């Protein structure tokens, strides 16, 4: 039997032989080689855009499904809540935080994680994905989408104990309709739950040759759903604030400050002569400006758009988008990016003047923060080193995906891709105005922190992973977010990376949302193209 070292020696010799036969580059080939791609540039860019937009929770339809509407039935009936609770074995979710919380001594890995496996509830044809989760009034509610039917529909799952989950039965009038519907975020409010997202045309009419159906269809609208108990849902009727002529609108996140709601997201509109982003191949290019967008509501039912057109939202020349919002700091704090997460060709740095021809191909971005005292008026936080690329790197993609708050201040998470490396990123701020970067453990082994949740006692959990090609990952912090420990990777728990481009991505996983109650954290996302729930427990690790 051949030994491992024999196999390695032979494989090393082949690699070295291949490298030795490679010609030494002559001339300044680096830049030209960077331009060359074995996949057409538009396809590479499209794939990258798809990845990034999925990562930031922006809904995208890749392809329509078959012609059959598939309704995934819940595993149990949904009526009386009490009948679905296994009364003897599982403690109900308690959303009231104890007034005094004792922080346990922190072991090397302060949490245990469990993947909840239920293909009947979480699976179906094509893809099901959870994008966010919220806990309120004894119910955990996860929202997302289901691509198993004729087109993409919004989807909701719920649990009374964090471990046993049910799917809210599909109702085409509530979760479906023409084109796609997707819930991107959910929040618990006094009257129940509010979910936000988007709906729109199934295919982008302006990208006829593109296989990617991009959300920035100008017939994409913001969408809101409401539930009094997390189980029975209604669609909030469309209002003018959800749409804008020749503009795509999407809500990425929503927060509740005790008296009202703030939803944030982005707008996508065609611009002439300015074009801050070019999409697609040369034929059928779409020039799009991306701006931040904010909505307000007192009850989750009646919504209005605020600060539209303000310079803080991006104006005509600077692409910006809000990915998340939290009630905290001076009132509200929203995070996102300036620039666009897009692997383009010509370099343009945020802040640079738009070229004379009005076209700038955005190839990098920096993290962006906005604050508001009341949710109505917004100010863009001034650029600072912590929001840019480490070490003064020239090119990179730095994005904040989520933000949360606790007594010590704000914690934002995201990712950083720069000259030298790519990694998960954490930012801390006492007030939403000044930010500090901290480097989590194994930051550069994992490229993404997608969501962050707060547990009592200044403890935080961050989760992440990109849905198409990565493992999921989870970090925890017990010291106000200053230091972070990554939970050891396990393929069974967090998914596996495919070993070649020809291999199916069926093992990939991502976690996109998280919420906590007491000593438990519920994280949601997608595993093997099914919706997935992970339950983390503080202080239960046995080392």
């Amino acid at each position, binding site marked *: 039997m051949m030994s491992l070292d*024999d196999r390695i020696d032979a494989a090393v010799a082949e690699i070295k032989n291949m490298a030795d036969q490679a010609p030494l580059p002559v001339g*300044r080939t680096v830049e030209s080689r960077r331009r060359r791609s074995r996949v057409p540039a538009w396809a590479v860019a499209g*794939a990258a855009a798809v990845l990034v937009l999925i990562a930031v929770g922006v809904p995208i339809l890749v392809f329509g499904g078959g012609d059959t509407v598939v309704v995934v039935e819940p595993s149990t009936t949904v009526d009386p809540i009490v009948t679905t609770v296994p009364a003897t074995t599982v403690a109900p979710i308690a959303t009231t935080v104890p007034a005094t919380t004792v922080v346990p001594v922190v072991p090397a890995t302060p949490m245990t994680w469990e993947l909840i496996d239920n293909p009947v509830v979480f699976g179906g044809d094509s893809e099901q994905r959870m994008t966010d989760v919220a806990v309120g009034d004894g119910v955990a509610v996860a929202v997302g989408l289901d691509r198993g039917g004729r087109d993409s529909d919004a989807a909701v799952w719920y649990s009374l104990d964090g471990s046993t989950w049910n799917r809210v039965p599909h109702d085409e009038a509530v979760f479906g309709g023409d084109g796609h519907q997707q819930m991107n975020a959910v929040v618990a409010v006094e009257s129940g739950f509010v979910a936000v997202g988007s709906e729109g045309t199934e295919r982008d009419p302006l990208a006829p040759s593109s296989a990617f159906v991009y959300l920035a269809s100008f017939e994409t609208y913001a969408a809101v759903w409401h539930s009094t108990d997390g189980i029975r849902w209604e669609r909030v009727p469309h209002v003018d604030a959800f749409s804008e002529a020749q503009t795509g609108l999407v809500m990425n996140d929503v927060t509740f400050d005790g008296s009202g709601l703030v939803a944030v997201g982005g707008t996508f509109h065609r611009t002439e002569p300015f074009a801050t982003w070019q999409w697609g191949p040369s034929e059928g290019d779409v020039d799009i400006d991306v701006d931040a967008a904010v909505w307000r509501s007192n009850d989750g039912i009646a919504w209005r758009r605020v600060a539209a057109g303000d310079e803080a939202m991006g104006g005509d020349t600077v692409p910006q988008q809000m990915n998340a919002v939290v009630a905290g700091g001076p009132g509200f704090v929203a995070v996102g990016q300036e620039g666009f997460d897009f692997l383009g060709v010509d370099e343009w740095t945020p802040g640079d003047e738009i070229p004379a021809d009005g076209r700038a191909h955005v190839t990098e971005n920096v993290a962006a923060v906005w604050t508001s005292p009341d949710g109505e008026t917004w100010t863009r936080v001034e650029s600072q080193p912590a929001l840019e690329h480490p070490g003064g790197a020239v090119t990179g993609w730095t994005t904040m995906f989520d933000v949360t708050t606790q007594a010590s201040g704000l914690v934002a998470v995201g990712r950083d891709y720069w000259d030298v490396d790519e990694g998960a990123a954490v930012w801390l701020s006492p007030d939403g105005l000044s930010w500090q970067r901290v480097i989590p453990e194994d930051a550069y082994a994992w490229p993404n922190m997608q969501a962050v949740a707060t547990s009592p006692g200044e403890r935080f959990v961050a989760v992440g992973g990109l849905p198409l090609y990565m493992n999921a990952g989870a970090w925890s912090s017990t010291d106000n977010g200053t230091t972070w420990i990554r939970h050891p990777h396990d393929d069974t728990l967090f998914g596996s990376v495919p070993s070649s481009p020809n291999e199916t991505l069926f093992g990939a996983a991502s976690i996109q949302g998280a919420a906590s109650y007491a000593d438990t954290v519920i994280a949601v996302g997608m595993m093997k193209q099914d919706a997935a729930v992970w339950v983390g427990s503080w202080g239960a690790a046995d080392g």
Partner: protein
Amino acid sequence: MTRSSNVGVDGVIGTSSFDVFFRSEYRSVLGLAIALCGDRWTAEDLTQEAFAAAERGWGKVGGLDRPGSWVRRVVANKSVSRWRRQVAEATAWRRMPDRGHPDTDPQLSAEAEELWAAVRKLPKRQCQVLAMTYLDGLSTSEVGEVLGCSAPTVKTHLQRGRATLARQLGVEEES
């Protein structure tokens, strides 16, 4: 003219300190990139990008004790990310109707490709440690210097990576 450049206006490779560094290190770094990327063309792109970055910052990079470590770190970090991204791109490509799949440049033997594919499937740090240890013949402390971690950490990654590789390939792991 004091600025380093690997090529003059006439296309002739120069003799600056960067040129010497480039010529002495390029193929070795390329081998590392091929192992980590699994694709020679992508590896060449990455390697050239890394050397281009080194050239841009040669005033700083050239002053390091081991500029080769800096370039290897860039390549090691970006190779894994790039490769994983490529997987996604290739899959996205496959989803497109009426379009083929990009070539994969299968120039290694099936056995070698199987091994490097298994290496690439390891967690990022294990993948990097194995490639640097065997392709560059670096010691654990040298690999640690490149990756910015301690020698014991490198040793742990190496042991775990080898164990996983042996299991996946169905071969005996010798100590």
